[in-house]
């Protein structure tokens, strides 16, 4: 067990993946000598060579499209998209090829591609560097979409993504890259919890708060604050947005009677909509309030001086909890 940052945990996970399977390849812009703009691939090209840690031309569709071909050849490409807002040029390859190849070939062609995307806001960046595109991918059959909230999960879940025979969109909450936590770098992958299962991080009785990625810390802080007001929040880290671990949330809501879903992405057709619809269907008689959602607005991500106004924070989470309790 060592205390380390999420960034370092991700680096260690990639190193382990490269070591343990020589069909694993890394590809992306600036991931070689530079180690990526966030240094997640720091040192890997030096140790594994240019043929396994590949600086690609500046073309995202090219990255994903060649990854498909590499996968057909039996490789396991792990690609880095430099920032969330730059994944869209690759959208066609992701939606029409990466996601559908396996089904199209009746299982003959696997697409064990991991698409790493630093996502979300809160780092004071310029436009296109703070987006949360998860709903686009979660709506797409054939993809899996997961996001760690802490260094330990980052370490384990990234390796699980690389080991998966399905394509996984791996969303890295960039503003949590420098958060520290305990990581057991010798952790045995085989006995690790499935990345598609949600984890209850804090038990509570007044209401359930479901979140993922960057919002987990925010929600845990909200729960701590709520406690002083005598409100007991159960906080669930969804970890996976596709598939969604609905049973874990449903079981919690059956106990608490209330659910608030929190994410940075726009509320409108965000992951919270799906969770709200499903939980309501399954907990119709246990819900004491409608599922409330806290998230981004139906606006482009604003200039960074306004991002604090845009992003859900502790107070907005508590405001929603209050509204749920007031029902």
């Amino acid at each position: 067990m060592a205390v380390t940052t999420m960034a370092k945990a991700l680096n260690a996970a990639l190193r382990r993946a490269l070591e343990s399977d020589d069909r694993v390849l890394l590809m992306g812009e600036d991931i070689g000598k530079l180690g990526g703009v966030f240094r997640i691939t720091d040192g890997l090209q030096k140790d594994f060579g240019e043929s396994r840690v590949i600086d690609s031309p500046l073309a995202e569709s090219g990255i994903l499209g060649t990854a498909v071909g590499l996968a057909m050849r039996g490789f396991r490409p792990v690609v880095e998209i430099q920032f969330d807002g730059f994944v869209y040029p690759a959208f066609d390859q992701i939606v029409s090829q990466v996601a559908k190849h396996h089904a199209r070939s009746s299982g003959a062609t696997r697409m064990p591609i991991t698409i790493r995307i630093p996502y979300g806001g809160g780092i004071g960046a310029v436009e296109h560097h703070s987006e949360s595109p998860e709903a686009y991918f979660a709506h797409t059959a054939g993809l899996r979409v997961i996001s760690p909230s802490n260094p330990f999960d980052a370490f384990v879940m990234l390796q699980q993504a690389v080991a998966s025979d399905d394509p996984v969109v791996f969303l890295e909450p960039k503003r949590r890259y420098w958060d520290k936590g305990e990581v057991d770098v010798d952790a045995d992958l085989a006995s690790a919890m499935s990345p598609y299962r949600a984890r209850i991080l804090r038990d509570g009785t007044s209401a359930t708060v479901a979140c993922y990625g960057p919002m987990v810390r925010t929600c845990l802080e909200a729960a701590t604050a709520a406690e002083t007001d005598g409100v007991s929040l159960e906080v669930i880290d969804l970890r996976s947005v596709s598939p969604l671990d609905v049973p874990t949330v449903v079981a919690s809501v059956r106990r608490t009677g209330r659910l608030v879903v929190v994410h940075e992405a726009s509320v409108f057709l965000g992951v919270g909509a799906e969770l709200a619809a499903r939980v309501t269907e399954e907990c119709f008689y246990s819900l004491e309030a409608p599922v409330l959602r806290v998230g981004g607005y139906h606006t482009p991500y604003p200039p960074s001086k306004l991002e604090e106004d845009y992003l859900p924070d502790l107070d907005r989470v508590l405001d929603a909890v209050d509204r749920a309790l007031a029902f």
Partner: protein
Amino acid sequence: MTADGGPELVQLLTPEGERVHHPEYDVDLTPEELRGLYRDLVLVRRIDAEATALQRQGELGLWAQLLGQEAAQVGSGRALRPDDYAFPTYREHGVAWTRGVQPLSLLGLFRGVTNGGWDPRERNFALYTIVIGDQCLHAVGYAMGIQRDGAEQAVICYFGDGATSQGDVNEAFVFSAVYNAPVVFFCQNNQWAISEPLERQTRIPLYQRAQGFGFPGIRVDGNDVLAVLAVTQAALAAAREGQGPTLIEAFTYRMGAHTTSDDPTRYRVAADLEAWKLKDPIERVKVHLARTGMADAAFFSSVEAEAEELAVHLRDGCRALPEPPPTSMFDHVYAEPHPLVSAERAEFERYHAQFAGGAS
């Protein structure tokens, strides 16, 4: 642009069936090999004709005809070694034939019983790709994999004249050039992208596109199976030897409609078709074989008979293609278990169980 392909066109067999020489490219085939190419061309045309007929009879929802492009496909397909890998569009029935893919399995997609139809690994022949240009990047990625495996193999990637406008195709050119990947880009310039003539995609001959990316481009008479074979063999050999990508523009003509859904009389004149009929890819081989005595009437009729047999096989086989069970749509969405898909499948089964007989 020159309607006849211009002086840069590589040709080894004229439309009149005359064998000509080219300073750079040649093939040296035995009579048997030549007869084999003829047989390929005839059978491939017959597959196409039969599938077109099956569509007219309502057995297929659609068919993308290759009429006129037989030589481009057979010539390039026969240039491949078994361990090379081919990435087709939706029209490469002739290439599929040369790879040994069962003709019947090509029909599944068009009959609507599958989105695929064969196992790409068996014959190193990828599934048809419908989104224009997407497969070019797959081809380059596969070629990058070959490099990493240190293998002496090459990849061939098919696409049309229209496809050259897509970003992905040009990104494929960039990646292949930068990595010097062993890939041959084989563009069948059949002069049309549905209703749009070549001028809507380019103002210079397409083979010249390669120059802009720093690798060789060459224009070949796409209706000349020998020239296509020679040029493709050379490009594949170069790729295998580490000389990187080549763009081949096979100058040809889509003699039929874009697909059976299309009506070309709306946008092109009959005279063009007539002109291209004189350059028919099969006729010239037949004349050459006959004139040189490499084949006799018995041979030609044996090929005809074989074609007829193949047609019957397709006709019967098409109708017998098994319909997938409804629940098969849930089968391969993911390689690993997925709770949502499982739940939806269960719900689907519950729902259908209500009805007499139910769905499987």
